[in-house]
């Protein structure tokens, strides 16, 4: 199973977000972390692009969190983030660096899950 297939989003045309005139489904993961690179906005960027860049100027947030803070559907947050990454205004980091291995289909490794398990156990309060 390819990652792309799973990352495709159905996006109605009225959600088109400006730069290219047509919204394309995003290939970003919802848990991709994004942070402003410091490169200024260009004249073709919209006010919603500006809000995204401003939101992640002081630190990193995932695409879902950006959508949540700006009250946008997740699919729209993903498209905006992808446009801004390709324009160089946002730096992106993938959620799990080695999850793209075909055998993994995006699933966390056993080692990562063991870390989750012990982390959760240590959060329990007596």
């Amino acid at each position, binding site marked *: 199973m390819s990652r792309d297939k*799973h*990352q495709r989003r159905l996006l109605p045309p009225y959600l088109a977000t400006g730069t290219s005139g047509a919204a394309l489904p995003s290939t970003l993961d919802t848990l991709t972390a994004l942070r402003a690179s410091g490169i200024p906005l260009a004249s073709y960027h919209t006010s919603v692009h500006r809000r995204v860049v401003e939101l992640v100027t002081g630190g990193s947030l995932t695409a879902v969190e950006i959508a*949540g803070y700006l009250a946008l559907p997740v699919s729209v947050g993903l498209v905006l983030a992808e446009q801004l990454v390709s324009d160089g205004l946002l730096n992106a980091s993938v959620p799990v660096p080695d999850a793209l291995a075909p055998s993994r289909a*995006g699933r966390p490794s*056993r080692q990562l899950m063991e870390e*989750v*398990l012990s982390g959760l*156990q240590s959060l329990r309060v007596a």
Partner: protein
Amino acid sequence: MDSNPSVSPSPRPVYLPEGDHQRVKILVAGPLGVGKTTAIKTLSQIPTLHTDEVMTDAAAGTDDLSLIGLRDKKTTTVAIDFGRLTLPGDRVVLYLYGTPGQRRFLPLWEGIAFGALGALVLVDTRRLDESFEVMDLIEERGLPYAVAVNTFPDSPDYDLEIVRSKLDLAPDTPLITCDARELNSSLNALIELTAHSISSAGVGAS
């Protein structure tokens, strides 16, 4: 719709840890009013976020982008809640996605389920059958899951073995009782799920 709406968009975001970390998704799924938002609020260390995903019904069940815009479409919104939980040491950040379990949201489900560690399915013993649809969706995706019974004041007091057989669970699927309003109880449910995901990853997985 949502009896327990999350905070409105906040001007002060809670940023991710600065250092290298991995981000892992866990789904919290179940029928209307079963306690998904409550569990996520209990577990989240940041004010929970809420999004309304817009979906075109015309495209539901197909993957064909060319259909979009060519048909009359009815749009539906699907509410999703998000919570975040940074594990001690700042090396792993968990995201909890509160997801509605209906099959008509199938296109959305593919993206939501992708890469998840597993799903915590919440059930209410007064209406066990309402959880079947979401359990089917999760099983079809091969996602490991655990089932947590949220006990409400007027819930019938079933033996867990009876619940297990009514839900037709596999013998190794964890089934626990949970109070979504309590942190330790909700953490225990995630611990059961994670342990199960690890064992179902098999010996070959690394």
